[in-house]
């Protein structure tokens, strides 16, 4: 696909501008015995419906913390966080998002199917509904046939796919993913990235995705948020213009390299190595 075609495609895409996540002047400070740690400082960010937003930055830049604030797993020290127009805490109570952690976090005493139905049980759905949803979610991540297996009988990549199915099972519009493929090898990671993109294109979910891999961020995202550490802040927001049904081939295109370059520049500018 040529650059022109990409640009045309973007021009034709309906641009919906209602914000799913809206963060204003967010600051988060951890009080520790060694004094305060400024995890996030003055963060402003809007994530619109249907976007795939990647957070990239060196370790300790607060990208995971930012995701955890959106998920209401951490409380902001100051500033406003609203999800779908309500506070993060209410959004969590409303089960507004599915969260995928760095590790699969599957419960070893439950089969894959019963791991996927765990949130559905908590939400008190009927058994028939739970089984049907688990079936559909496992199909989305190509894990059908493994329902009765236990997590420890599956490979690391399959476990992480099961955890994604679990996050998808209750059909939240917002998907929060914290370096979900960080522990996997490159081949598996490429495959899962492709699957994730297909899923995103098909379901039109909003995705917030933490990573420290530049190619992964550029390949997956419609918007890349570059962060820097001490204190964690946003130093660049880059919109990419690849179509939703992109393939791994775009990674050799000049636009891809250009955006990757800009991300790298941003990371370098935000990170002083002489500390």
């Amino acid at each position: 696909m040529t650059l022109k075609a990409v640009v045309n495609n973007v021009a034709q895409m309906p641009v919906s501008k209602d914000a799913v996540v809206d963060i204003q002047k967010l600051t988060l400070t951890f009080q520790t015995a060694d004094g305060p740690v400024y995890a996030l400082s003055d963060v402003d960010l809007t994530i619109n419906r249907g976007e795939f937003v990647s957070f990239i930055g060196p370790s300790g830049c607060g990208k995971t913390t930012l995701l955890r604030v959106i998920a209401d797993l951490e409380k902001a020290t100051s500033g406003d966080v609203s999800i779908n127009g309500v506070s993060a805490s209410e959004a969590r109570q409303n089960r507004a998002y599915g969260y995928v952690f760095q590790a699969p976090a599957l419960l070893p005493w439950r089969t894959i199917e019963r791991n996927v139905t765990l949130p559905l049980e908590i939400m008190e759905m009927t058994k028939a509904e739970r089984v049907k949803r688990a079936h559909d979610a496992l199909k989305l991540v190509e894990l059908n046939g493994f329902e009765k297996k236990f997590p420890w009988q599956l490979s690391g990549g399959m476990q992480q796919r099961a955890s994604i199915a679990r996050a998808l099972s209750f059909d939240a519009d917002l998907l929060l993913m914290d370096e979900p493929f960080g522990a996997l090898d490159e081949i598996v990671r490429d495959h899962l990235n492709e699957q994730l993109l297909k899923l995103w294109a098909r379901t039109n979910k909003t995705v917030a995705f933490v990573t420290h891999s530049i190619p992964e961020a550029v390949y997956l995202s419609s918007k890349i948020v570059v962060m820097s550490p001490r204190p964690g802040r946003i130093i660049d927001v880059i919109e990419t213009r690849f179509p939703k049904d992109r393939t791994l081939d775009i990674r050799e295109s000049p636009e891809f390299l250009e955006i990757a370059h800009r991300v790298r520049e941003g990371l370098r500018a935000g990170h002083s190595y002489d500390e």
Partner: protein
Amino acid sequence: MTGKIDKFCLVGAIAALLALIFPLTGADPDTGKMVAFVGDIPGLAVAMALCVIAGAVFTWYGVGNVALASMLLLVVIFGGWQAIVSLDDYGIGGHARVGFWLFILSLWALVWRAIDVLAKYRTLETGKQQAAHLLVPVAFGVWLLFVWQVVTVGFGVPQVLLPPPSMIAERFTGSIPILWADFHQTFIKAVLSGYVMGCGSAFIVAIAVDRVPFLKRGLLPLGNMVSALPIIGVAPIMVMWFGFDWQSKAAVIVIMTFFPMLVNTVTGLNAAGRLEKDLMATYASGYWSTLLRLRLPAALPFIFNALKINSTLALIGAIVAEFFGTPIVGMGFRISTEVGRMNVDMVWAEIALAALAGTAFYGAVALAERKVTSWHPSFRVRR
């Protein structure tokens, strides 16, 4: 031949050969004559000869497979049987000398080699493998009983010091009604009810401690202190409080089992990882829902540890507590009175009963653990 000689079989062959030559028994102090000769005991002579032959053959060719090991084991079993029979029927008991003990040494060496081969047996057929796994501990136990039997009878150990297992078994089978009554009183009434009450209440308190943080700081040290109380100090007091019957024993067991269960459950409830707790938080899961779906299952290995520890503690507690006043039935009561009457075989029969009951109880809890926590890394099987 396998290239090198089998040392255990060599020892077995030589010891059996010497057993045929050296005197089997000493002289009877009354008559001044030898009590018995190998030549007069055909069964024993055959067994010794078999040991010599088997030992010599296997020294040369090695015990290469399970079939050969089983043959060797059969030779040893025949030898052991003849040794016991000749002790009783030919009056060797109390007069056994070098020849006899050399024969026992020979059996020892041969059985060592046979069990060694069986223990190393590996097969993919589950049934056979399980049988092999089972055979080793059984053989070990039987051998121990055999040595106990020949040593006590052969040396003529006074029965008050240590009766032979055959005598204990005889007493055991002869006193089934008494033993059953004691078992019913001590185990079924006191142990089971005390165990259920102690573990159950500790479990409930552990949940309360988990729910209300200040209880943790207040109750745990208290529980620790109670568990440190000496049982022989507590038992008489419990008898005064709850009477002579099983209730006071159950109370002692509650005191003994409470703390291990409490500590383990509290630790177990904190065993769930932070990631999993965050996961439950993202589902807006409430306290009880998280407890039921995450924290209790994660605590199960700890809880079962406590249940296993307590299964043996409970029996000890009940038996000791019965020393301090009981109706005229119960395992502890029987032990204390029969010791006084020098009926040591009855004491041993009760000890055997306690060992059986305790092992079965522990085994049942361990089996339940295996079923319930089959997902735990220590039990996992790839399916």
